[in-house]
């Protein structure tokens, strides 16, 4: 296994276009996951002035009123805003002082939203799995090392590692930018637990694209199917954030969007269910991918097959 992992890492580091695409996936994941969060400064062309985005359509509905944004140069004052959001008792002198008060809600927004998934779905599986598989080297590696599954397993491990790193880095940046005070407010254990759960669930959501990459040989077709899967996940994720009910079939993308899951002192049953479902999905799709690789390796063109195909062509 060690030499297969070394081989995979070496090949990945030598392919700089692939590394650039992975970096793009990281930036896309961060950018799409972090928009519309309270405190984001925006330029408003209508009034020709800067304004602050105070709420995120779905996350703040339960705790705040659904005011879309606060314009700094309109009739509203900081007191109006505080009164509107029930923060009269807070010691606030500047508008920016309100944002740390919303850190909990912002933190949950960073966790449940799967906005950057589309980028990861479309980029990672073709770059890390299908492109190398099409080169034929993994099949050769399987023959050389007389191990039918290890090359694919090493590839899957590198893919999982990339997903975890991208997810971790983009989540940490989002938390740092939008909810920097969450650790002091809610405690390190809560932040660590929820971040680990998010990583596990991200891996589960991205285990389906992994299997699709083993299944579909043509890269344009694969990208199209992965994009469709990303859109379905996005719809499920957004649908879940306005719902407090579980689906009859546990799907990680839907569970990911359930907001109570990310609250401090959230339902323990849901957390266990989400973790268990994620592990089952990861194991299931990894096993299916290995099986697929095994079957693909058996289709190697030999002398007999070449003779038969030549006969059929004539």
């Amino acid at each position, binding site marked *: 296994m060690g*030499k297969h992992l070394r*081989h995979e890492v*070496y*090949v990945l580091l*030598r392919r700089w276009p692939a590394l650039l695409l992975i970096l793009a996936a990281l930036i896309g994941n961060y950018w799409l996951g972090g928009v519309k969060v309270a405190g984001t400064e925006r330029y408003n062309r209508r009034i020709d002035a800067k304004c602050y985005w105070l709420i995120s359509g779905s996350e703040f509905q339960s705790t705040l009123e659904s005011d879309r944004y606060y314009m700094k140069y309109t009739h509203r004052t900081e007191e109006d805003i505080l009164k509107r959001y029930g923060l009269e008792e807070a010691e606030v002198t500047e508008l920016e002082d309100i944002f740390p008060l919303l850190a909990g809600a912002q933190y949950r927004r960073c966790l449940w939203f799967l906005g950057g998934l589309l980028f990861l779905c479309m980029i990672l599986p073709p770059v890390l799995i299908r492109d190398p598989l099409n080169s034929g*080297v993994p099949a*050769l590696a399987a023959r050389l090392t007389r191990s039918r599954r290890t090359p694919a397993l090493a590839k899957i491990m590198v893919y999982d590692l990339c997903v975890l790193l991208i997810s971790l880095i983009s989540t940490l940046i989002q938390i740092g930018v939008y909810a920097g005070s969450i650790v002091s407010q809610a405690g390190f254990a809560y932040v660590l637990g929820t971040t680990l759960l998010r990583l596990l669930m991200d891996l589960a959501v991205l285990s389906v694209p992994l299997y699709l990459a083993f299944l579909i040989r043509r890269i344009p077709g694969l990208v199209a199917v992965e994009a469709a899967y990303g859109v379905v996940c996005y719809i499920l994720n957004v649908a879940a954030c306005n719902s407090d009910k579980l689906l009859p079939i546990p799907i990680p993308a839907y569970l990911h969007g359930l907001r109570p899951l990310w609250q401090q002192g959230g339902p323990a049953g849901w957390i266990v269910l989400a973790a268990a479902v994620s592990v089952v999905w990861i194991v299931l799709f990894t096993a299916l991918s290995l099986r697929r690789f095994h079957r693909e390796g058996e289709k190697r*063109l030999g002398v007999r097959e*070449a*003779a038969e195909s030549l006969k059929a062509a004539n």
Partner: protein
Amino acid sequence: MREIPESVVALLGEDALKRALAEATPGTALCTGVDIPFYPRLSIRSNARALCMLLQTEEQAHFWELLKLSGLRQSGWNVRRFKGDTGAQRLWGIVLGLMERPPALLALEPMSGMNEREREGFAALLRRCGEEGIPFTYTAARLKDVMDLGLPQRLRLALPGGWRETDTAQAEEALAGEEEKNWNKLQLRWEEGEDGKASEA
């Protein structure tokens, strides 16, 4: 007179490919011009190093030696890529085929797309197979290509009814004075009753 290695055979003629595939023994490794395993976006050197990581120590030495013989391991190989380089791809395919140490190896049109330098590398690999007695059979479109390798080899010409065997020295003799050295002319000479012996394969 130079010794003709028994294990290296060049197949010529229209039906050579079809017959060779039909008659090949089970376990024969096939080197075609397609489905050659390599990373197209990596240099030849990186491809070799990546593959080397998967091999045992003694296999690594054998692999590097074959690469050196083939001429792929030369200056500039750290920037040269396989993508679009048919000759280098075919040489790489043959090196991989030999590295796996199959009981016999059948290469289909290995010299197509190769330049002069790559053909020299191919000839060096054939020479090694001849010395070590590794059965290496390959098809060639033109007799001239085989003759130009400068390597004494056994030739098998696919004729209606069976194979006709000869070798490069006899073919050279039979075609002495001919400007174009192709297998059709050789066949014509045979039909006229000159050199060569017929044998049913």
